[in-house]
């Protein structure tokens, strides 16, 4: 077979047209040889060609408008205020528009050659005929109110179905076409299964439906599927494309963010048939609702699903501008189906949206708390406001633990006479400290050191790289056994100190005590041991002490002068170091004690910010572990009767934290608190929207975020869609949501109904799902589209009702088979003389194979999962570097929509079948047909394992080879196998059975693919040969096609 190239789609024959139209591709198609209609309709026939050929220079964008000529308004076309028009109604030959288009003079010809545009002969005929018929102008259809014939009161279900069929039939009759007969029951059942729940029917479902001859049999099935928990999953797949749900942030390092509860919210909302207006408002503004429920807060995560960056060097403002502009594109794309996003840098070329409209739309989102650069998020995963979303079971567990904690705390906080007695005993054992008030304090580098009444000394002013503080003390209690250095937090210090480095840390390199007698040489005071309340362990790679040890501060710089004591992990808290003297120290008359605190780290500014020095004469050993914290020992120095009430309480409270009699309760509390913490860590979080004071939004000229000269704007709806005067108070996201789902918003209902139609027919009634603006597609059935939109809104935005209305129609139930005659007259099946045939969406290709093979785990919702992915696929991700870890157990067999959605490297099996990366709003997935898809189905371990599991099922089915094959077909395609098919597969089976019997090692290798254990009850060669058969079946076009 040599008839194709790479990724080549080959068509050499004009008759090979199908309804399997990749929507996106189809959008490009215009049949050039269609007949000219009897009556020209401006919106159907003329506006698209003017928009395509003329609006770029003669359209809504005032800045790019040439010759002051506008062809998108009636005034522009027909003249106004004495200005002549470009058409003369009834007289094509006198109309300048037509003269210019047919002109052969290059100076006059429109559109000019440089534009690259040419108006086809058919289009010229259309224009002439339109002018000849009077040149009737209409506003753009999608911005006009719903058609009057459509905007009727809500009909009962049956009447609505009939009305839809009547409108489709009207179209067919006008084209002299006939509807196809109803599809056979098996096809119908498979169709509604794939369309409504995205899973194939089981053999039992098929058998039951075939047996049910009652008139309501089909409707019964529809109702069953609408109630299925998988209904929400199917619609969620579609909705998540629109709202760009993904599990990673997309920019640069593409790190993970936690938003799985949002996906669950979408699934549950569709399952519960939540009103679409409510669903809309919760996502755009759930956080602004009065006392928002947890569900509403999860929904508000919609605003946080856009891409984010933790790339060093990102300029905050630039990315804030990117994020907020994306929200305009997303909200307008998701709900309104228009491309307001195009007006970021210039007025829209085709639709009446101005740059001001764009930025006023942006301003609705200006209250969302966020950062441009999520600095550090690549390491700590903190991507802004989020909430915990425990399961019901987790909530119960939490409540139980909280109750335990409360009761233990209660016990630990209750004073008793026994405790008071024990405390009195304990106090006798405590070391008394005397705060030393230095006679002078000096800094080598000229730092301002201020002694405060409580004996603390604060450093301020100059902040040198290194320094030595020297304290001179003349009064000392006789017989000092130890000094205590407290380093303390203070609001004036970075990170509250106690150090002056930017991170609040310090390094005490050396603690040197010296006696300076009035005459004679200085005598060093030997320090025998030193202990500290905490020693830093971080950044200690090349530290000879393996940590920032207090021992380094009394080592005489033996291992280098920069090493010393530091506390990086616990900055912002008080710390203590105690230095034991080698022998009792008493100052003789005239002696001065100097204490030098050397701070020599080469990483600058690691000096102490606030400290206090004390001394004790208590017998050795004097160590930090024996000492009460500084605040307590300060109180202990006061005799109990003199202590204030708060001081008494403080000491008693402290004592209870160390009282031996409470040890068991403390242990219990620690254990319960740990359990709570562990449980808490397993509770998923989800990003939510938190509103803050709105930041200023300016019109950015040419979209340039550095340009601050533009006008500041406040939230407002696009002028063309809203006549309301600007309100007094600032509009909010909630107002935006209300306006989007207002009964008179012409877009939302139409957009939704059109997209639903695509889900159930393969293309929309207007084929451009992402643009209902001037460059969009005139709907094949405008009244039908409006009718569906009106019914949808009138029914209370009832999604299930709309779905049911569509799938109950005769149009939906038609056969999808095509015939040559139909191909010629309606190549794109616009008139719906048959149903569509199309490949399953990416996730469903997987779900289908999992379901057929019996591997599918049908759990609904939960965190994202990781089916097999080729190793090394993430090699070019970084910050951090990552390797995909395959899931375990059930996680390997979940539905495709739960697959971890990595924006930069989406799972290759999903990507091959056109799943979008979800970096932006995706309204219309293309459907390609590529060799990579074949490679996935042939070789991806998920599909090989599924084939083996399917083979096991087949082998466990009692019967002959033919009966087994028939069972396989019933399972895979819901129909009996044909004799020719059976023969082919029998032959394959026979060949491979021999083959694998001769090569048992190969059989075993094949069967070992996947985590599922190899069965012991089936001969390996037999199972391997049947696996070949199962692989063949799972690869069939029929298996992955909905028809």
């Amino acid at each position, binding site marked *: 077979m040599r008839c194709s190239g790479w990724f080549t789609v080959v068509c050499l024959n004009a008759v090979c047209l199908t309804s399997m139209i990749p929507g996106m591709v189809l959008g490009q198609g215009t049949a050039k040889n269609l007949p000219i209609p009897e009556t020209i309709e401006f919106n159907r026939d003329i506006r698209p060609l003017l928009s395509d050929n003329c609006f770029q220079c003669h359209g809504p964008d005032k800045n790019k408008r040439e010759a002051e000529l506008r062809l998108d308004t009636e005034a522009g076309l027909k003249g106004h205020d004495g200005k002549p028009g470009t058409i003369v109604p009834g007289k094509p030959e006198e109309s300048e528009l037509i003269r210019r288009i047919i002109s052969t003079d290059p100076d006059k010809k429109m559109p000019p050659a440089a534009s*690259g545009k040419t108006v086809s002969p058919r289009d010229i005929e259309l224009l002439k005929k339109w002018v000849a018929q009077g040149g009737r102008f209409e506003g753009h259809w999608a911005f006009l109110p719903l058609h009057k014939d459509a905007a009727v009161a809500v009909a009962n279900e049956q009447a609505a179905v009939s009305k839809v069929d009547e409108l489709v039939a009207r179209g067919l009759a006008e084209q002299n076409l006939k509807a196809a007969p109803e599809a056979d029951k098996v096809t119908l059942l498979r169709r509604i299964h794939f369309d409504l729940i995205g899973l194939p029917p089981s053999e039992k479902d098929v058998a039951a439906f075939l047996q049910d001859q009652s008139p309501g049999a089909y409707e019964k099935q529809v109702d069953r599927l609408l109630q299925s928990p998988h209904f929400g999953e199917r619609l969620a797949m579609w909705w998540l494309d629109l709202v760009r749900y993904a599990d990673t942030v997309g920019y640069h390092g593409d790190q993970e963010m936690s938003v799985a509860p949002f996906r669950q919210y979408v699934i549950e909302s569709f399952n519960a048939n939540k009103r679409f207006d409510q669903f809309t408002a919760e996502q755009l503004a759930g956080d602004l609702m009065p006392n928002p429920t947890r569900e509403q807060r999860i929904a508000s995560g919609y605003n946080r699903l856009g891409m984010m960056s933790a790339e060093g060097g990102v300029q905050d403002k630039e990315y804030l501008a990117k994020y907020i502009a994306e929200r305009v594109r997303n909200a307008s794309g998701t709900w309104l189906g228009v491309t307001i996003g195009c007006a970021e840098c210039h007025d829209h070329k085709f639709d009446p949206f101005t740059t001001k409209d764009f930025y006023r739309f942006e301003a609705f989102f200006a209250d969302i708390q966020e950062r441009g650069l999520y600095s550090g998020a690549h390491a700590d995963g903190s991507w802004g406001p989020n909430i915990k979303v425990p399961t019901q079971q987790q909530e119960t567990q939490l409540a139980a633990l909280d109750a335990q904690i409360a009761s233990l705390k209660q016990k630990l906080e209750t004073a008793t006479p026994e405790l008071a007695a024990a405390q009195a005993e304990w106090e006798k054992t405590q070391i008394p400290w005397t705060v030393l008030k230095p006679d002078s304090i000096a800094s080598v580098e000229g730092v301002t050191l201020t002694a405060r009444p409580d004996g603390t000394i604060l450093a301020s002013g100059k902040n040198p790289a290194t320094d030595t503080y020297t304290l001179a003390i003349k009064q000392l209690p006789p017989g000092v056994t130890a000094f205590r250095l407290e380093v303390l937090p203070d609001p004036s210090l970075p990170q509250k100190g106690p150090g002056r480095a930017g991170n609040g840390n310090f390094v005490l390199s050396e603690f040197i005590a010296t006696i300076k007698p009035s005459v004679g040489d200085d005598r060093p005071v030997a320090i025998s041991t030193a202990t500290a309340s905490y020693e830093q362990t971080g950044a200690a790679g090349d530290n000879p002490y393996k940590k920032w040890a207090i021992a380094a501060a009394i080592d005489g710089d033996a291992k280098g002068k920069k090493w010393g004591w530091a506390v990086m992990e616990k900055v912002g808290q008080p710390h203590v170091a105690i230095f034991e003297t080698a022998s009792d120290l008493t100052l003789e008359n005239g002696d001065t004690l100097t204490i030098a605190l050397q701070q020599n780290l080469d990483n600058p500014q690691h000096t102490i910010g606030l400290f206090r020095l004390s001394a004790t004469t208590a017998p050795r050993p004097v160590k930090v572990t024996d000492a009460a914290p500084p605040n307590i020992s300060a109180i202990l120095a006061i005799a109990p009767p003199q202590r204030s009430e708060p001081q008494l309480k403080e000491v008693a409270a402290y004592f209870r934290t160390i009282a031996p009699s409470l040890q068991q309760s403390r242990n219990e509390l620690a254990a319960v608190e740990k359990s709570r913490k562990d449980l808490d860590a397993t509770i998923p979080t989800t990003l939510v929207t938190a509103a803050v004071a709105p930041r200023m939004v300016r019109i950015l000229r040419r979209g340039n975020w550095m340009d601050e000269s533009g006008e500041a704007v406040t939230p407002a709806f696009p002028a063309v869609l809203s006549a309301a005067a600007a309100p007094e108070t600032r509009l909010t996201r909630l107002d935006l949501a209300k306006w989007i789902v207002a009964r008179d918003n012409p877009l939302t209902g139409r957009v939704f109904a059109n997209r639903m139609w695509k889900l159930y027919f393969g293309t929309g009634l207007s084929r451009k799902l992402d643009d209902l603006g001037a460059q969009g597609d005139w709907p094949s059935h405008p009244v039908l589209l409006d009718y569906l939109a009106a019914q949808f809104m009138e029914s209370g935005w009832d999604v299930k009702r709309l779905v049911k209305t569509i799938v109950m129609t005769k149009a939906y139930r038609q056969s999808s088979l095509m015939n040559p005659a139909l191909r010629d007259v309606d190549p794109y099946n616009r008139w719906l003389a048959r149903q569509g045939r199309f490949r399953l969406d990416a996730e469903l290709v997987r779900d289908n194979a999992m379901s057929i093979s019996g591997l599918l785990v049908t759990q609904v919702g939960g965190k994202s999962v990781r089916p097999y992915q080729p190793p090394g696929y993430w090699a070019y991700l970084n910050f951090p570097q990552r390797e995909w870890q395959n899931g375990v157990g059930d996680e390997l067999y979940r539905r495709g929509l739960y697959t971890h959605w990595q924006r930069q490297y989406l799972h290759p099996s999903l990507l091959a079948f056109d799943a979008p990366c979800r970096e932006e709003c995706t309204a219309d997935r293309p459907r390609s047909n590529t060799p990579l898809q074949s490679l996935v189905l042939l070789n991806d371990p998920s599909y090989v394992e599924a084939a083996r599991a399917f083979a096991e099922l087949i082998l466990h089915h009692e019967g002959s080879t033919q009966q087994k094959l028939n069972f396989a077909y019933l399972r895979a395609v819901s129909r009996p196998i044909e004799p020719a098919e059976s023969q082919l597969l029998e032959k394959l089976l026979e060949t491979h059975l021999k083959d694998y019997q001769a090569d048992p090692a190969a059989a075993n290798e094949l069967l070992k693919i996947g985590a599922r254990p190899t069965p012991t009850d089936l001969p390996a060669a037999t199972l391997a040969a049947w696996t070949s058969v199962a692989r063949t079946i799972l690869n069939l076009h029929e298996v992955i096609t909905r028809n």
Partner: protein
Amino acid sequence: MTLPIDVARRSFLQTTGISLGSMALQSLLAREGRAAEAVSPTGPKWQGVLQPMHHTPKAKRVIWLYMAGGMTHLETFDHKPKLAELHGQAMPESITKGQQIAQLQGQKLNCFGPQHAFKQWGQSGQSISEIWPLLGSKCADEMCIVRSLHTDAINHDPAHTFMNTGSMIAGRPAMGSWLQYGLGSESDSLPGFVVMVSTGKFGQKQPIAARQWHSGFLPGEFQGVEFRGTGDPVLYVGNPKGVTSKRQRDVVDAIQSLNGLAQQRLEDPEIATRVSQYELAFRMQSSVPELMDVSKEPEHIFDLYGTKGGDGSFASNCLLARRLAERGVRFIQLYHRDWDHHGAVKEHSAGTAKEVDQGVAALITDLKQRDMLKDTIIVFGSEFGRTPMAQGNGRDHHLAGFTMWFAGGGFKPGMSYGATDEFGYHAVENRVSVHDVHATLLHLLGIDHNRFSYKFQGLDSRLTGVETANVVKELLA
């Protein structure tokens, strides 16, 4: 395997012959106002929507050597003696005022002199740094160096996206995809758009997103395919364990025959396309390993590239690029992600250049000796340049001026074009935008960028964006 599978398959192929169909092609052609019959029955490959091309092309294919991370122009191709004189002095505020700055935001901006000497190479006397001894000595007279590039993005991710797709907003097709769409493929067993990535030892290993070779809003058929150095060279191209090529063939034959029976029953052209794609998939299962196996290359080729292949190095990828070019692959992109030199730019630029020098010189030499350089465009460059200001002993990201160079495929050889100011900061003379590069490349491939568009969200979207882009005529031979 004998009857009946073969019979069914053959009879299917005979009956359907080459009149297979697919809606995708149909509508693409329809969009261009051409009937499907316009495709010659003897040339059934996808040959692109541009038939005929807008003008006679000079080049048939592109090999884009993408120096990812932001190659310093000041140590490589843009000599700034004045900057050396100013080393350590403050950069004048008039130069930096109102400019975008990345990691140096809020820091003191001091000049940082070039860290490597430059010399004149070849008959053309091109000024190139000494860290490119092989490129300079062997290829200077083939190179067309443009020193006046500027771009819109200062961070890696959006700057890559802009360089590849002409837009910072994700979702636009990469240039390779545009070419598949417009020109089609010359290979019938390999993808038309192939990407390979090598990783060096010096710079930060900045991520590269698969978005850089995504087909965006164009059909998925036009997506770039990554060829990998380890594991399956193309994802899923290897048979499952225990499945020999013959067994795989049996399975594919059975699939084809069963799909053929369905096609006879239903006359659904999409089935026919599916059949052809399975054939292609199966062919790829041998053509890709054949391509990747360089063991039969002669010794002097190994010497030339300095590799025996199979090591995932840049040079090894260069050798594969030549083999891909020979087999008709349209757009080959080699990323070497090692150029993000925030620190130690002297040592790191020398190190990374060494990783690249021999491969690129070999590739140009090799193409030339096979007479393929004339219709193969070599593109060499980064997503942006680096600051003339110091970041410690390195340089920060820089968008206002940087260098790219081209060779072959209709570019003027041995020439220099454009210039930055004396600091190497702003492109000041003959400024060239990223869109201009795209326009020029398309021009050489026979495409008028203004007339090459695809409707997306209502707009005639172009690779070269909505603002004016120009073919840089001075660069054309």
